[in-house]
C-alpha cells in the first residue's frame, strides 16, 4: 500500500514536471460593462526554470456561456449579454479559469473626445512630440502631446489654429480639420488615410476601425462628448501587466493595459494604446502589446494612452545556468538585486578582494586614496568586521566632508557667480560643510535650501537675485535637484513627454513670486505686505494668459491664503514629504556609488524613463525615510551591501550587463578627485594659482575638491571635465585628446613626479630597495601590492633601464598614475 502511494506520488510529480505547473489566467476575475466591451486575457505558465511565459496563443480558450460572450484564440473576450460566465484556458492538459461578470451589456459607454479620438491620435502616433504633438505642432495642425489636453486638441481639431508660447490667442490661419458637411473630406481623415499629401504618411486605412470611429464622430457633428468634469467619465490612470517581462530570444509575451476610470470601473485599453520599445534590437513591441524577444538584454517598453503613459521592463534572458552560485544577502539591496539577476540568469561577480574594496570605498566615500600605511594596515587586518569598521571610519573623516561638500556643491551649484559675493559664497559653502559635519538630515537640508529666508546661509545662493532672476528660473532647478523631475519645458508649453502642464509650472513658480530683498540684499524674505493697500502678493504672471497665477502644488492643491505667511516653507514641507523626494535622493546617492542611477540620469524621473529596479528604489526610499533622511545611513547601507562589494571582474553571463549591478562598473574619477589622487600618489600637493583659500596667492596643499570652478582656474580639471556648475550635478569625465596631452606633457603628470619632497624623492633619499619602492608606489597609486609577476618584471626593468634609478622609478610612477587602473574607480 505504502509502495503504491509512493509510486502514485512519484508519477504525479513526474507528470507535473513534464507538464509544468498549472497555467493561470490574468486577470483571474473581471467585471465588464457595456455593449461590445472587450477584454483581453493572458494564459501564463511557468516553465521548469520558474520563468513565467505567455502561452495565450497556445492555449485553448473556452467560454462557459457562448450566448453571453465570445472569445477568440488570442484570448480576447467580447461581451454579448449580461450575466456571469466562466472563461477557461487549457494548456498541455492543465487548465485555469477566470470568473467574469458582465453588466450593462446594452448600455453604451458615453463618447469622449479625449478618450476615443485622442486615443486614436495617441495609438497612431499623430500626437508624438516629433509630429503634431510638438510644441508648435506640424503642418499647421497642433495636438497636445499624448492627448494630455483634450479640450485644446478639440479646439485645434474642430476650429483650427496653433499654439503660441506668449499668447493665449493662436496665430496663423484657422483651418478646421473636420468637415461636418462632407465628413469623408475631413482633413483629419484624408491626411491620415493618405488620400491627400501627408508628411506623416498613412496612419490608417480607409474603412479601418479607427477611420470609421472618426468618420462616425464627424458625422455626429463632432461633439466633444463627456470630458473631464463632474459628470463625465475619464481615465484616472492606466496600469500595465506584467510590469516586468522575461523572454527568450524568439518568444513573445503580450502586455495588458487597464484603464482605471473616474467612476471606479476598469476598462481594457490594450488595443487602444501605443507600445514603443526603447531598444527594438532587444525587444520588439507590436500592436496589441505583443513583445517579441530578439537578443539578450533588457529594455523598457513605453505605453502611451490618451493623456497617460506608463512603462514596463522587458528582458531577454540567455540559456540556463548550471550551479547558479549562492548570493548571501547582507541587506535588502542584495535581495532585490539578486532576485533580478537570477531571473535574467546573470551570475554576479565574485566578492571583491580587500584591496579592491578599500580603494573603491575610499574613493566613493571620501574621494581620497588611502596612504600606503593604511593599505597595509587594512590588508593585514584579520577582523571579520573590518569592512564595516572601515566604512565607519571613512564616514567620520574630514575627507568625507570635503568630498560630499564638493558633490553637494556641484548639485547645489555653489559658485561665486550664483552667490554674488565672497561672503555669500563662503556662507553657502560653510552651510554645506557644516551640514555634512553635523550629518544634518537631508530633508532638513532641503528645507533650509528651498525655504532659505532672512540672513540664512542657503538663501545666499541664487536667492539674492530674486528681483532680477525670475522665479521661473529658481523653481525648476530646485524641483530637479530635490524631486528628480525636469519640468523646465513646461515653462513655455505643456511638457512634451510628461504630464507637467504650463499651468502646473507657473503654479509652482508662484511660491517664489513674493521673494524680495531687504536691507540692500542682506535679507531675503517673502513679501510681507508692506503696503497698506497691497497686503500680500504671492503670484507670478502666466506668460500666455497674462493672468496672475497663485501658488499651486504640483498635484493641483492650491495653497490657501491663510497659509501664505511662509509660502516657500509650505512648498519645502510639501517637497520633502512627497514620495518623489526620498526616491530622488536615494537614486542620486545610488548613482554616485554605482555610476548610474536606478533611474538614469538621476534627475530625470519620468514615465518614459523607468527605474531598472523599481522595488529596490522604493525600498531604499522607505529605508531613507524611516531613518530620518540620514545620508550616512544610506551610504552605509549601500557600502555594506554585497552588491556594492562585488568585484569588477566580469564573467560570461554579466560581461554585457550595465544595468543590473552584477559587477562593479569601472568609473572614471572626477577631475578633482583625479587631481587629488595624483597629488596623493606622488606625494606632491597641487599648487593652485589664485586658489581662494589663499586669497589669490599661489599656494600649496589645498585639495582640488575644495576649489570652486569659477574662482580657481585649472587647465587640468577643465581637460578632465570638471563641472563648472552651470547646471546641477557632477561633471562629465569623458576621454578627450587634451587628457592625453596632459598625460604626456602636462606638469601634473611630469614635473610632479620628481619634485623635491615628493614620494619618489623620499624613496630615493632613503635608498629604498627596488622591491620596497615598487610596493610603495603600487600601494600609493593603485591601493594594492604588485602581483608577483608584475614585481619581478619591474625589478628587472628597473635594473636594466637606462638613465639611472631615479628615471626608472619616475617612469614607473608615471606609468602607474597614467594607467586606467589609476584613473578609474573599479
Amino acid at each position, binding site marked *: 500500500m505504502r509502495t503504491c502511494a509512493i509510486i502514485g506520488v512519484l508519477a504525479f510529480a513526474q507528470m507535473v514536471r513534464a507538464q509544468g505547473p498549472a497555467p493561470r489566467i490574468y486577470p483571474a476575475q473581471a467585471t465588464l460593462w457595456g455593449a461590445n466591451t472587450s477584454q483581453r486575457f493572458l494564459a501564463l505558465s511557468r516553465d521548469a526554470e520558474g520563468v513565467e511565459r505567455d502561452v495565450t496563443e497556445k492555449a485553448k480558450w473556452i467560454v462557459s456561456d457562448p450566448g453571453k460572450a465570445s472569445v477568440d484564440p488570442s484570448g480576447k473576450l467580447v461581451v454579448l449579454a449580461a450575466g456571469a460566465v466562466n472563461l477557461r484556458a487549457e494548456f498541455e492538459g492543465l487548465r485555469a479559469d477566470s470568473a467574469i461578470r458582465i453588466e450593462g451589456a446594452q448600455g453604451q459607454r458615453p463618447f469622449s473626445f479625449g478618450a476615443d479620438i485622442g486615443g486614436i491620435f495617441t495609438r497612431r502616433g499623430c500626437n508624438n512630440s516629433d509630429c503634431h504633438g510638438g510644441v508648435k505642432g506640424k503642418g499647421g495642425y497642433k495636438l497636445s502631446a499624448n492627448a494630455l489636453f483634450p479640450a485644446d486638441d478639440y479646439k485645434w481639431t474642430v476650429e483650427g489654429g496653433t499654439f503660441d508660447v506668449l499668447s493665449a490667442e493662436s496665430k496663423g490661419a484657422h483651418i478646421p480639420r473636420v468637415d461636418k458637411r462632407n465628413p469623408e473630406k475631413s482633413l483629419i481623415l484624408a491626411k491620415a488615410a493618405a488620400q491627400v499629401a501627408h508628411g506623416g504618411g498613412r496612419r490608417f486605412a480607409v474603412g479601418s476601425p479607427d477611420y470609421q470611429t472618426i468618420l462616425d464622430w464627424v458625422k455626429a457633428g463632432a461633439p466633444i462628448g463627456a470630458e473631464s468634469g463632474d459628470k463625465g467619465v475619464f481615465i484616472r490612470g492606466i496600469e500595465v501587466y506584467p510590469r516586468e517581462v522575461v523572454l527568450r530570444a524568439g518568444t513573445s509575451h503580450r502586455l495588458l493595459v487597464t484603464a482605471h476610470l473616474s467612476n471606479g470601473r476598469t476598462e481594457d485599453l490594450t488595443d487602444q494604446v501605443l507600445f514603443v520599445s526603447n531598444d527594438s534590437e532587444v525587444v520588439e513591441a507590436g500592436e496589441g502589446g505583443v513583445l517579441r524577444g530578439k537578443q539578450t538584454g533588457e529594455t523598457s517598453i513605453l505605453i502611451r494612452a490618451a493623456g497617460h503613459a506608463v512603462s514596463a521592463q522587458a528582458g531577454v534572458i540567455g540559456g540556463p545556468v548550471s550551479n547558479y552560485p549562492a548570493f548571501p544577502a547582507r541587506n535588502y539591496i542584495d535581495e532585490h538585486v539578486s532576485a533580478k539577476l537570477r531571473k535574467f540568469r546573470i551570475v554576479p561577480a565574485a566578492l571583491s578582494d580587500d584591496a579592491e574594496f578599500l580603494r573603491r570605498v575610499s574613493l566613493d566615500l571620501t574621494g581620497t586614496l588611502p*596612504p600606503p600605511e593604511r593599505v597595509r594596515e587594512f590588508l593585514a587586518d584579520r577582523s571579520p568586521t573590518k569592512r564595516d569598521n572601515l566604512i565607519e571610519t571613512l564616514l567620520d573623516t574630514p575627507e568625507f566632508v570635503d568630498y560630499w561638500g564638493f558633490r553637494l556643491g556641484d548639485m547645489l551649484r555653489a559658485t561665486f557667480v550664483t552667490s554674488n559675493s565672497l561672503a555669500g559664497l563662503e556662507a553657502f559653502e560653510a552651510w554645506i560643510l557644516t551640514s555634512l559635519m553635523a550629518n544634518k538630515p537631508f530633508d532638513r537640508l532641503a528645507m533650509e535650501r528651498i525655504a532659505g529666508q*532672512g540672513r540664512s546661509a542657503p538663501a545666499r545662493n541664487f536667492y539674492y537675485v530674486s528681483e532680477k532672476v525670475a522665479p521661473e528660473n529658481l523653481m525648476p532647478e530646485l524641483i530637479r535637484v530635490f524631486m528628480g523631475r525636469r519640468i523646465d519645458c513646461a515653462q513655455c508649453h505643456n511638457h512634451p513627454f510628461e504630464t507637467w502642464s504650463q499651468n502646473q509650472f507657473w503654479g509652482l513658480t508662484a511660491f517664489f513670486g513674493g521673494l524680495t530683498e531687504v536691507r540692500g*540684499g542682506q535679507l531675503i524674505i517673502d513679501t510681507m505686505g508692506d503696503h497698506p493697500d497691497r497686503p500680500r*502678493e504671492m503670484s507670478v504672471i502666466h506668460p500666455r494668459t497674462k493672468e496672475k497665477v497663485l501658488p499651486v502644488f504640483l498635484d493641483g492643491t492650491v495653497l490657501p491664503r491663510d497659509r501664505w505667511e511662509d509660502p516657500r516653507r509650505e512648498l519645502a514641507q510639501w517637497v520633502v514629504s512627497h514620495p518623489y523626494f526620498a526616491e530622488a535622493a536615494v537614486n542620486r546617492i545610488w548613482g554616485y556609488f554605482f555610476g548610474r542611477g536606478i533611474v538614469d540620469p538621476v534627475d530625470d524621473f519620468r514615465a518614459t524613463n523607468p527605474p531598472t529596479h523599481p522595488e529596490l528604489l522604493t525600498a531604499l526610499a522607505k529605508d531613507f525615510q524611516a531613518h530620518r533622511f540620514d545620508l550616512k545611513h544610506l551610504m552605509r547601507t549601500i557600502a555594506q551591501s554585497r552588491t556594492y562589494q562585488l568585484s569588477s571582474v566580469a564573467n560570461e553571463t554579466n560581461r554585457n550587463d550595465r544595468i543590473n549591478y552584477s559587477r562593479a562598473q569601472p568609473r572614471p574619477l572626477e577631475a578633482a578627485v583625479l587631481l587629488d589622487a595624483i597629488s596623493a600618489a606622488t606625494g606632491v600637493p597641487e599648487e593652485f594659482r589664485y586658489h581662494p583659500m589663499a586669497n589669490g*596667492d599661489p599656494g600649496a596643499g589645498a585639495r582640488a575638491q575644495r576649489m570652486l570652478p569659477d574662482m580657481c582656474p585649472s587647465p587640468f580639471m577643465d581637460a578632465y571635465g570638471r563641472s563648472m556648475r552651470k547646471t546641477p550635478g557632477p561633471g562629465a569625465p569623458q576621454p578627450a585628446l587634451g587628457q592625453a596631452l596632459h598625460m604626456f606633457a602636462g606638469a601634473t603628470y611630469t614635473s610632479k613626479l620628481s619634485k623635491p619632497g615628493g614620494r619618489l624623492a623620499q624613496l630615493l633619499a632613503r635608498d629604498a630597495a627596488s622591491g620596497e619602492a615598487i610596493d610603495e608606489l603600487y600601494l600609493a597609486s593603485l591601493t594594492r601590492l604588485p602581483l608577483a609577476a608584475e614585481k619581478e618584471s619591474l625589478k628587472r626593468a628597473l635594473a636594466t633601464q637606462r638613465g639611472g634609478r631615479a628615471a626608472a622609478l619616475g617612469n614607473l610612477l608615471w606609468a602607474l598614475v597614467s594607467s586606467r587602473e589609476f584613473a578609474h574607480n573599479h
Partner: protein
Amino acid sequence: MGREHRTRVFEVLRSGVYAWRLMRRTSVFLLATIAILPALRGWDETTPSEPRLLSVFPTVAPKGGRVRVELRGHDLAGVTQAWLDGAGIAGKLAGPAERLGSEESPARPEGDGKKPASIYRIAIDLDIGAQARPGGHWLRVVSPRGVSNAVRFDVAGRAVMMEDSAKQAGDLPLPVLINGKLERPGETDLYSFQAGEGRRYWFDVIAAENFDPRVGLLSSKKSWFDGSRPRRVLLDEERSFDLMPASAKGSVRTSEPGRYTVEVSSLFGKGCAGCSYQISISGEEGRLHATAPLPESWIERDFSRTLDDRWIQKIESRRGARAAMSPLAAVFSRERAGGEEPSAIASLPALTQGAIDHPGDVDQFRFKASTGQKLVFEIETPGTKPPHFNPRLAVLDSNGKQLFSNIQRRISLFNNNAETEVYLKDIQPRAVHTFTAGGEYVLQVRDLTSRYGNESYSYRVLIRPQIPHVGEVSSSGLDHINLTPGRARKVDVNAMLEEGFSGEVTYHASGLPPGVSMRAAGRIVEERAPRDLPENAETVLPVQYSATLVFSASRDADPSHEPALVTLECRPLVDGAEGPPLQVRRFPLMVVGDSGGKEKQP
C-alpha cells in the same frame, strides 16, 4: 556683518541711473555749488602726501603700562609725534619711520598700471595710565605734512598676550585675550587650551577693518588619511543655525576633555600686514567680552540705542525751541506671554517690551490715539540685533487694516515677473504717523522673517508724541583736515530733520587755529532718494538737510606745530531763535607749509 564685495553690474547701473536722477533733482544744489566755486580759489580735496595710517599692531594693551606698537602706512617719513585724544594715554616716537617697500596686490599679479605706494613702518611707545579709559582710542601721527587719519587702539582692563607667546605657551590659561595678526595670505593662527568634559567655552574675534576674520575649533584627533590634518569640531552656533554669522564668534560645549585648538583665519584666506585682530578665549570661569567702539556722534536711527525716559529727554534737547516740553514719563508695559488678545497700553507715552520668542511669533499691543495725534513708534533690539533680528513694526486700525509699518520702500529700476515695479526695502528703527481718526489701534511687532525667534529676540518699543528735532548729522569723510595757507577744504554735512522739524540748521566750529575760518558755502533741503514712495513719506525717513562747509586758511596763516582739536557743532534754528549747540564731530586740524606736498624719501 562682514563687508560684502558687491560686484553686480546692475548695482553699478542702478547707481548710475540713480545718480542721473539725483542730479536732475538736485540741480538747484549743483547750480548753487557752481556759483560759489569762483569764491573757492585754491580748492583742496586732499593733501596728497599727508601721512596715512593703514594698521596698528598690537591693537590692544592693558592699562597701567607701556607698550610699543607698530604703525604701518603711507607717507610716514618725517613723522614727528604720535597724537591721541588724551584720556590717560600718551604716545612717543620710538624711532624714525622705516620704508618697507611697495604695496602689492596679490589678487592682481598683472597689476593695474598704477604705481604702487610705498609702505612705511613706525614704532610708537604708548604710555597707558592706570586711569586710562578702557575701550577704543584713536591713534594718529603728525608730520610736517599734516595730521594722519586715525586707527583704533584698545585699552583693556586685564592682561593681554601677544600671538607669538600665546602660540608658544602650549595650553593657554583661560580667560585670555590675545593680540594676533594674519600677515600672509592663507595664514591661520592656532591657540590651544585644555577643555573639561561638558564645559562651555567662548571664542570672540575682534578684527581690524581690512579683513573678515573667521574662528573655528579643532580637536586633537587627526584624519585617518593624513596624520597631520586636524579634525574640526562644530561650534554650537554652526550646529544649530543656518544663519550667516554676523561676527567671528562662537561657543562650544565640549563632549570630551582634552586639548582643543582655536583657529583664526580670514575670509578666503586674506592676509596682510595690517590684518591684525584680538581674540578672547574664555570658559565658564569668566567670560571676556569684546570692547565696544565708542560712538563718535549722536546716533538715533539705530536699533541699539537705549529707549527710556532719558531718551525722550535727549530727543527734547535737540528740538531747538526754547520752551521745551517737560520731560515725558513713559508708562511701562510688557507683552502678555502666550496671550491671543493684544496687551493693553493704558496711556501714552508708553514703553513696551517683549520678545519674538518663537518663529512666526507676532506680539500685539492695543493703544488709543486721538484724531490728529502725531505719534512716533521707536523700536530697540537689546538682545539679538539686525541683521539677525529684524523687527517689523506695524499699526493696524480697528478693522485690522494696516496703516503703516517701519518698512521703507523705494522703487527699484529692476523688474521681476510679478510686479511692474520692484521696491528696494529697508527697515527703520522708527516710524512716524499722524492719526487722522481717533480710536483704538493695534501695534504689531514681529521679525521680518517667519523663521527665527527665541528669547534673545527681545525688543522695546517706545510710543511717544512727535518731537520735531534735528536728528543725526553726518559728515562723511570728516576725520581730519590739513590745510595749506591760502587754500580751502570743503566738507559736506547732512542733518536729518526728524518728526516734522521745519526750522533750519546753523553750523559753528570752535578751536580753529589762528588764520583758519569756517563758513557755510551753500545749503539745500534735498529730496529723499531714490524715488521714495509717497505713501510712506512721513512714516519712515526724515527729511535731509544738506550743507557745505568750507574750512579755509588765510595766506598768512602760520603752519601749526601740532593739530588743533576742532569741535564742529550745529544748532537748530526755529523762528529765528537758535537752539542749544549739538556736537557734530571733533577732529584735528593743521595748517601745513607749502612744502608739505612732496614726499621725502629717507
